[in-house]
């Protein structure tokens, strides 16, 4: 038996905070995407933000209901218990809504004269920070995922994990069937003229359902493996191999992203086909997101195994890191919008365009310096907090903490190099640097993997 009242309460609070975080992200994404489309695109397509808007509204509704229905729960234990129960359920409702929204919006997107398949932006830009945030909330209170079955035998554990995946598959089938039936009805009654296109739309619904199920199931399976391995390592007091795997996947994806950028920037103009540049650009962006995700997973599991995560300051630092990444993304989109507006204003005057380009690069550098100061503070705080722990191999844990600072250097160099136009050298440096950190950490891990992390003290 591993599930108890503390886990129940902690879960409810973690789910509530994650729902608020996710709803804010859905809302932010919808607003930024709308502004971007209104300014940068010839026409605004409301369907492109429908998934995020729908999820933001559902999230807001669920949170408001919980807060109003269980108001005053601070002083009343019974109400507080009911509130935790509600938010544990509401989180799943929001999760199913996210899955359902994509299945419903995919055919609408195609039917509204869009030629391509709708991108699953929810998965890439919102789900990933939300999973990291949820994991952080769980780990800071030492709450394991799959708490009810974590200490069961291997066979029972994996059978139950598989059952949970199939249960979620059942929900996805239900949502897909609903969307499929409604769309089929619409196509037969109102759009009988479109022929083969109808088949494409119906296939798109099946594909959307399948994609949602696969992506969420893979994430759940990944967490299930990580929890099991990490719990065993915690019992022995050592580091688990899963941390090293997360680090290597993060570093590998980062290197792949950098290589993609090098190919685009060094040889982009030599390609005959723009499709290749687009393909490498896609690899670069996807790998950067995956790299960030796995580095985050690594940090959370690493600090959790060090038992450093119950430290509230450290949790605030990691949450701040997630927030700064979101701000960085918002800044990136907004700066490109301003850039386009200004270039439009200076249209036809090359000197003015050049001066504006240099000025915007200087601004970008200044903002990067701000981020660098932020990351330097994060690094310093991490060192200060972690130095309070008595650890085996005292300074070895400093390596992952340095990843914060590497990000700071990355940002500043990015800003400076914008002025001289050539970033290839930086990306090459980044590939070498990240590989070196990975190798260093593996050597360190090899040395300390069998030693208990915390001393007898």
């Amino acid at each position, binding site marked *: 038996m*591993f599930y*108890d009242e*503390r886990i129940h309460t902690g879960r409810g609070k973690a789910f509530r905070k994650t729902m608020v975080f996710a709803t804010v992200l859905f809302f932010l994404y919808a607003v930024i995407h709308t502004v971007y489309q209104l300014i940068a695109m010839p026409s605004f397509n409301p369907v492109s933000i429908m998934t995020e808007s729908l999820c933001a509204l559902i999230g807001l509704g669920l949170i408001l209901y919980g807060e109003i229905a269980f108001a005053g729960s601070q002083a009343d*234990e019974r109400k507080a218990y009911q509130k935790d129960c509600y938010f544990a359920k509401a989180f799943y409702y929001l999760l199913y809504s996210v899955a359902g929204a994509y299945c419903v919006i995919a055919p609408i997107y195609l039917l509204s004269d869009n030629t391509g398949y709708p991108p699953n932006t929810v998965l890439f830009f919102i789900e990933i920070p939300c999973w990291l945030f949820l994991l952080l909330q769980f780990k800071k209170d030492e709450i394991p995922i799959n708490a009810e079955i974590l200490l069961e035998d291997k066979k029972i554990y994996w059978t139950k994990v598989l059952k949970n995946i199939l249960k979620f598959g059942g929900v996805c089938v239900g949502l897909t069937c609903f969307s499929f039936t409604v769309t089929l009805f619409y196509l037969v009654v109102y759009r009988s003229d479109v022929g083969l296109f109808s088949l494409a739309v119906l296939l798109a619904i099946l594909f959307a359902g399948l994609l949602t199920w696969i992506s969420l199931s893979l994430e759940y399976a990944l967490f299930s493996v990580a929890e099991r391995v990490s719990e065993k390592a915690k019992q022995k007091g050592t580091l688990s191999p899963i941390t090293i795997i997360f680090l290597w996947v993060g570093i590998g994806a980062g290197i792949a992203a950098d290589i993609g950028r090098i190919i685009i920037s060094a040889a982009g103009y030599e390609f005959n086909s723009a499709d290749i540049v687009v393909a490498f650009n896609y690899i670069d962006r996807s790998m950067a997101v995956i790299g960030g995700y796995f580095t985050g997973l690594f940090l959370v599991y690493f600090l959790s195994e060090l038992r450093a995560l119950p430290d509230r300051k450290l949790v605030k630092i990691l949450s701040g890191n997630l927030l700064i990444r979101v701000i960085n993304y918002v800044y990136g989109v907004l700066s490109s919008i301003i850039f386009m507006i200004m270039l439009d204003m200076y249209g036809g005057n090359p000197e003015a365009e050049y001066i504006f380009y240099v000025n915007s690069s200087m601004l970008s550098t200044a903002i990067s310096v701000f981020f660098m100061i932020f990351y330097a503070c994060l690094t310093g705080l991490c060192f200060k907090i972690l130095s309070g722990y008595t650890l085996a191999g005292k300074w070895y844990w400093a390596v992952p903490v340095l990843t914060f600072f590497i990000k700071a250097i990355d940002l500043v160099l990015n800003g400076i190099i914008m002025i001289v136009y050539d970033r290839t050298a930086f990306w090459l440096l980044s590939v070498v640097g990240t590989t070196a950190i990975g190798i260093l950490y593996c050597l360190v891990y090899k040395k300390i993997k069998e030693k208990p992390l915390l001393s007898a003290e």
Partner: protein
Amino acid sequence: MNHKMREKRQACGLSQADLAKAIGVARQTVNMVENGEYNPTLSLCLKICRALGCTLDDLFWEEK
């Protein structure tokens, strides 16, 4: 910190894991109750008292 609970558990010769198993909770929960990081419900307090063979007053009453 709940020193009284830690001392009583050690006097009974139980580890945190043993006590956790006896009362059906996670080891981390026992650790957090002992460190004063988690405020247990009455039902959990009673389970702990029964397992350690003492009363609520012995373990949880705080003199002002």
